């Protein structure tokens, strides 16, 4: 099926311009009056006074998830650093204090000037240790060094800011099925 756009030559009314201009003016006037009488229906946002709402699904600044005892969930497997197309994650591993877990992180830096916010690190993580749901989208620092976000900064977040059914969360270790498995092995789960 083919639908052809026809070109019509202008008739004499259209050649006079003024009548067609009024038809256009009618449309623009309608929109202008909408701004006066129904201001709340306008699609624009008066920015600095009213901030647009950003939801948790938005890929913003990263955060590192924590275990119940407050240590980072990260096991330093380098998956995020490998998956990153911009190579902005730097990880240094150390031995974990917990006997059940082999490694933990000593250093975890994300350079937010290099990051392209593609979300591949979140997708790659095998233990759901990194998420990008802080809703922080504006970064203002005075020098480049400050854009390199350290582990402490990434772990510094308030659980109250995050809903339970987090959109970016995967079914994390310690989830229902995992708990059953670990219970059957006689292991304690937090």
């Amino acid at each position: 099926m083919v639908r052809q756009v026809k070109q019509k030559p202008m008739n004499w009314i259209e050649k006079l311009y003024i009548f067609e201009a009024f038809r256009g003016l009618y449309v623009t006037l309608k929109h202008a009056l909408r701004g006066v009488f129904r201001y709340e229906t306008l699609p624009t946002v008066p920015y600095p006074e009213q901030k647009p709402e950003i939801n948790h699904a938005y890929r913003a600044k990263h955060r590192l998830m924590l275990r119940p005892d407050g240590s980072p969930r990260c096991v330093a497997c380098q998956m995020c650093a490998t998956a990153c197309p911009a190579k902005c994650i730097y990880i240094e591993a150390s031995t974990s204090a917990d006997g059940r877990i082999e490694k933990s992180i000593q250093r975890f830096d994300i350079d937010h000037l290099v990051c392209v916010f593609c979300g591949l690190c979140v997708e790659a993580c095998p233990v759901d240790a990194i998420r990008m749901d802080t809703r922080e989208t504006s970064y203002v620092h005075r020098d480049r060094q400050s854009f390199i976000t350290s582990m402490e900064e990434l772990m510094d977040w308030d659980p109250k800011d995050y809903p339970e059914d987090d959109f970016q969360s995967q079914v994390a270790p310690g989830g229902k099925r995992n708990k059953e498995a670990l219970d059957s092995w006689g292991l304690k789960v937090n």
Partner: protein
Amino acid sequence: MKVLAPNGEKLNLMPLNVGPSHGATHGCLRYFCALDGESIVATATEIGYLHRGFEKMAEQGTWQQVIPYTDRLNYCSAMMNNIAYCRAVESAYEIEITERNKVIRVIVNELSRMADHSICVAAAAQDLGSTTGFFYLFDSREMMMVIWEKLTGARLTNSYARIGGLYRDTYHGFEDDVLEVCKQAEKNLKDIHAVFDRNRIFLDRTVGVGKISKERAIDWGWTGPCLRATGVASDLRKDEAYYDYETYDWSVVTGSTGDVYDRLMVRLVEMEESIKIVRQALKRLKPGPIDIVDPRIRVPAHDLTYQDMESLIGRFKSVYEGVRVPKGEFYSGSEVANGELGFTLISDGTGKPWRIKVRPPCLTQFAAFQELVEGSMLADSVATLSSLNIIAGELDR
């Protein structure tokens, strides 16, 4: 600038540089005109100001890591590039994606097409001096951007498609949002038609300007709306149908003369067709899996990874080594907003692409720019350029 014409005539021309950063060039490109009064006698185009080395960068990482780069090709409809790239890799594997994935990809494709056409026509309106038209079209585009924000987590560089799957499933309320966008887009189209269609200023600036014949357009390798505007009913969605496009009820939109007016109107009418496809696709959107189950192609789902050792290993191998695309050379062209976006993939069987060559749709259109504008007025060249929808990110790669 004194110039000796080939017939021995001495011409006194004025050289004029338009671009690289000029409001009408939409990005970074340059054309150098030799003007006689206000009409263009000769012009030379230059590209490469936005060259980021996409093809070389793609060779540095794994096949999956190319996806964020494809966002930056045509940044007005980033997801269509993601999908086109993933389709190319999937065609190398010769795998079928799941039914739900297909439908979501069709919806996303068509909404992106609408967004891209909105930008093209809006920017053309802006260049022709109508800021009003610009904002009417951006109204529905903004609603699409909000959908992208919820669906993919980013507004512009979405990185939504994955090889053999999608980044994530749709959110709750996605269907209603899409329907609302369709409604709003129809309203905006009505407004834009009322303002532009029979307005004499618009017609005088566009009708008969930047004309190209069918044969010349095909010679230059044109595709997409620009070729269709010359009257050739060529659309990859019909000709080499993919994602079940042939089963939807829609028609290919063609123009008749191939001037600026036709190119812009074809885009506006194509938006109507896209709305039709989206409405039909929403009816087909049934619950189901979105990722294919094959750890060699698509990483195993997270909840499997936490329970199952094999999936965890599959996950590590997929990220560390990349998907191993079969050895050989593959080409796959998809119909994106501007025309045929082709990916030539050369794989040596390892996890990294050996070579990726992109066939950007607007390169061929910009190549013919010289032919379109020579002999016309300088102001017409601005109208011609914006009707071609040159996206510098895609042009220079």
